């Protein structure tokens, strides 16, 4: 009997695991995908080897890459970018850690209050979460991002929009700024040379500007795992969880098992209440099933897998909100073509942003050639100059929106990738009941019936649609202000990459799965600690910081409610994940 079993070692699960390991609890972490313990032997920095969703090392599938990926049903032109493996989607993320907008919390009373999704707010105040934001910001750690050329170009555009520079952690209104990101900033030779011989740790520390965030961070060469620049959880929280005995008084290292696919959550009825009692998982390699019991079970498999596991476990769904309310920031993509060098795709994937509550935000993004081609061809508006698929909106960009592909794409990139600057359009999108995960009618895989992800992208709410059009227009203005000679809008088909709220917490029992403690309303002792627990899409900010802050709070709630402990975030100081004691122990463990 374990104290706690955490299902999933992605962006959220390791946070709960690390915090409770520091309290001395017996924590088991089960990850469905690969361990990736030796990235220098297992990764490259090539796009197909890394990012091919079917066969790359960053895919949704077992460790053995000769076996097929796990098939998920998407019933529309879309791309749901799931990753298995320790670190989850933080393995390919850009480390951006903005805080959620205050307007998505239930105490917000500014004049634009009604402009947000007021029916789906967080069931507590922004102020309630601030100590947890600060705790995670100190742990990761979060810093103000360094600037490369592509950031300088982006800021040049921002400066033409008449907005202030944000110099606070909290976003109070429309503004722009360098990202606050979980990237160790360049030190020593990092960012200052291309000479490989000079870019080894400790002569180089932090971000070397390699531009390979999306292929996984394993730099600088020779650094301990917890000193790699990008603070994906495989570099931050997981090393802490595995070494809790050396940095936390009374701490107890977690046990981490990978290639362990949880297929069922078990429950029992005690004192009239349904309680989680354990899990069954299946070994990807041998196919053997294992069962283990625990006092508390924490789901952290992601917005698509959590509902699937819930359904496959036969857990109750009294208000029918399991899997509903999936938010995705209804992304779009706008590209500027410049006469001059833009620095794309060097440096961190994105180190600059513009926030525009209550509409959403923008980020600059650098992409290598194949991902750039993917990004310009993922469209709901047909092919530019050929057909518009019933859409093809026009605006401050050139011509109708749609795919830039074939000869037009070849011409666009012929001037060099480093003459392009791409802007990700992030929409403050509403929680909508019909954007959801259900059980697919297609054949089950070895782990049971598979999930089907449905986004009714052509009938989003009026507010969501308005926000997306507004921010796409801002992106085009920004690029023109920065000096773009031509601007293209792609009108992306749903790219489900920022995922939130499919198992949401909420104020009302009528439209939420979790109570304000992130404990499920239907099954006691069953918590959720990843993006799916979020009440909404946060207004547009990238979800990782808010998820990890909430997961820290959830760990405290678990400790208080189920183990009779005291909270610690307001009483103690956090240990930074780069702590040398962690590095030393990782070395002893061969990690």
């Amino acid at each position: 009997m374990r104290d706690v079993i955490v299902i999933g070692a992605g962006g959220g699960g390791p946070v709960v695991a690390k915090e409770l390991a520091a309290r001395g609890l017996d924590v088991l972490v089960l990850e469905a995908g690969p361990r990736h313990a030796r990235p220098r032997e297992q990764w490259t920095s090539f796009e197909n080897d890394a990012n091919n969703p079917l066969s790359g090392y960053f895919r949704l599938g077992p460790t053995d890459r000769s076996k097929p990926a796990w098939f998920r049903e998407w019933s529309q032109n879309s791309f749901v970018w799931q990753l298995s493996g320790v670190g989850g989607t933080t393995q390919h993320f850009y480390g951006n850690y903005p805080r959620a907008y205050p307007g998505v919390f239930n105490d917000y009373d500014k004049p634009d209050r009604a402009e947000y999704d007021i029916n789906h707010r967080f069931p507590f105040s922004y102020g309630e979460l601030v100590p947890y934001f600060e705790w995670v910001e100190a742990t990761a750690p979060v810093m103000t991002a360094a600037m490369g050329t592509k950031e300088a170009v982006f800021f040049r555009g921002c400066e033409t929009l008449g907005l202030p520079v944000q110099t606070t952690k909290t976003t109070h209104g429309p503004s722009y700024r360098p990202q606050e990101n979980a990237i160790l900033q360049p030190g020593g030779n990092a960012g200052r040379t291309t000479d490989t011989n000079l870019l080894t740790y400790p002569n180089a520390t932090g971000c070397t500007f390699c531009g390979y965030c999306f292929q996984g961070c394993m730099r600088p060469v020779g650094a301990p795992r917890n000193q790699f620049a990008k603070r994906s959880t495989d570099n931050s929280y997981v090393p802490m969880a595995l070494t809790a005995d050396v940095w936390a008084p009374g701490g107890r290292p977690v046990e981490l098992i990978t290639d362990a696919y949880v297929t069922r959550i078990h429950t029992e009825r005690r004192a009239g209440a349904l309680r989680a009692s354990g899990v069954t998982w299946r070994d990807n390699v041998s196919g053997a099933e294992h069962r283990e019991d625990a006092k508390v079970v924490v789901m952290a498999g992601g917005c698509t897998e959590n509902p699937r596991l819930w359904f496959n476990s036969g857990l109750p769904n009294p208000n029918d909100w399991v899997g509903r309310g999936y938010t995705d920031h209804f992304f779009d993509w706008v590209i500027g073509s410049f006469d001059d060098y833009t620095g794309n795709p060097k440096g961190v994937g994105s180190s600059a942003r513009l926030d525009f509550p209550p509409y959403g935000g923008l980020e600059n993004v650098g992409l290598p050639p194949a991902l750039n081609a993917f990004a310009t061809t993922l469209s709901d508006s047909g092919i530019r100059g050929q057909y518009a698929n019933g859409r093809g909106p026009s605006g401050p960009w050139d011509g109708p929106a749609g795919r830039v592909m074939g000869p037009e794409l070849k011409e666009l990139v012929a001037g060099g990738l480093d003459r392009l600057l791409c802007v990700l359009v992030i929409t403050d999108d509403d929680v909508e009941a019909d954007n959801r995960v259900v059980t697919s009618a297609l054949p089950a895989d070895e782990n049971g019936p598979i999930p089907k992800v449905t986004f009714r992208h052509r009938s989003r709410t009026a507010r969501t649609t308005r926000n997306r059009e507004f921010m796409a227009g801002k992106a085009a203005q920004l690029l023109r202000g920065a000096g773009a000679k031509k601007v293209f809008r792609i009108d992306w088909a749903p790219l489900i990459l920022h995922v939130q709220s499919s198992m949401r917490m909420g104020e009302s029992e009528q439209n939420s799965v979790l109570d304000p403690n992130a404990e499920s309303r239907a099954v006691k002792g069953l918590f959720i600690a990843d993006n799916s627990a979020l009440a909404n899409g946060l207004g547009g900010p990238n979800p990782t910081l808010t998820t990890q802050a909430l997961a820290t709070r959830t760990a405290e709630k678990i400790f208080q409610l189920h183990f009779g402990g005291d909270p610690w975030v307001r009483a103690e100081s956090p240990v930074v994940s780069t702590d040398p004691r962690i590095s030393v122990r990782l070395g002893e463990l061969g990690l």
Partner: protein
Amino acid sequence: MSNSTVALGRRAFLARLGLLGAVGAGGLLSRGALAAPAANAQTDALPGLVALLRPVLAELARDTLNGLSVFALPGPDPYSAAQGTPSDTPGAMEARTTDFLIEALDNFVPFPDQLARPAGAALATGLADTGIELPGTDLLPGELATLDKALAALLENDATLPLSFPISGLLNLLATQVNPLAVNGPFLSPFARLNYAEKARAFELLEGPDSDLVALLDVQFPEPLKASVSGLLKFVGGALIEFASFGSYTEYAVFDRGTRQLTGRPVGWQLTGYQPDGPVEGWDDFIGYYQGRTEVHD
């Protein structure tokens, strides 16, 4: 199926699939192989014919996907020229995009066989009567019936159907809907014979919300799979373009899996100027902090 039931519809269907073009004079399958009387085919000649047919379908799929690859990235090859978008710089054929697609479709797309097989069969049985007038072919009714039977046997009995076949069949059916004349001409497959605008039109039909083809396919499946098939086809329409474009610009063609190194400069890198001196450990692009600010506080 008797000779008389191999009606014009079946002939048209096999032509639209590209199969008739692959048989006969100059084709991959000799007419001699089809000479056995259809009535006896089930017992004697059919298994052999099915074995002969399998590589024909593979070649047909390859040719079709060549047409798709150059649609994503044209280059200095005959397929790009036929498409009307010749180019002096390397393209998808040099990037081996077709191999990339076939390898992915046949080995790595975790598409359930339980769905792929009926989808292939639906293509082969449900879409014959489209009312589109096609140029004639010279196969005799008996030969046609044998071919048809062999195709049906293959679809019904093969344990694992390479996904590249139903995908290419889909593209060829769309191609002949866009341009019926594409049943004949250079190359093996109707899709590869289309010009760029016609290929775009084929994808417009696939992606469109009211695609007749999608509706027809749905009819072949019972509930609750009905809507799943049409939804998946819309997904497939987008995914084929996106995946072919992605593959064309990757290192796929020059990646040595043994050494995990490149054996040459990827086409996508040549075209975009990416990493002119090869892979790096870092860049000298750090230019400071915006407005000199290195930290912020509330």
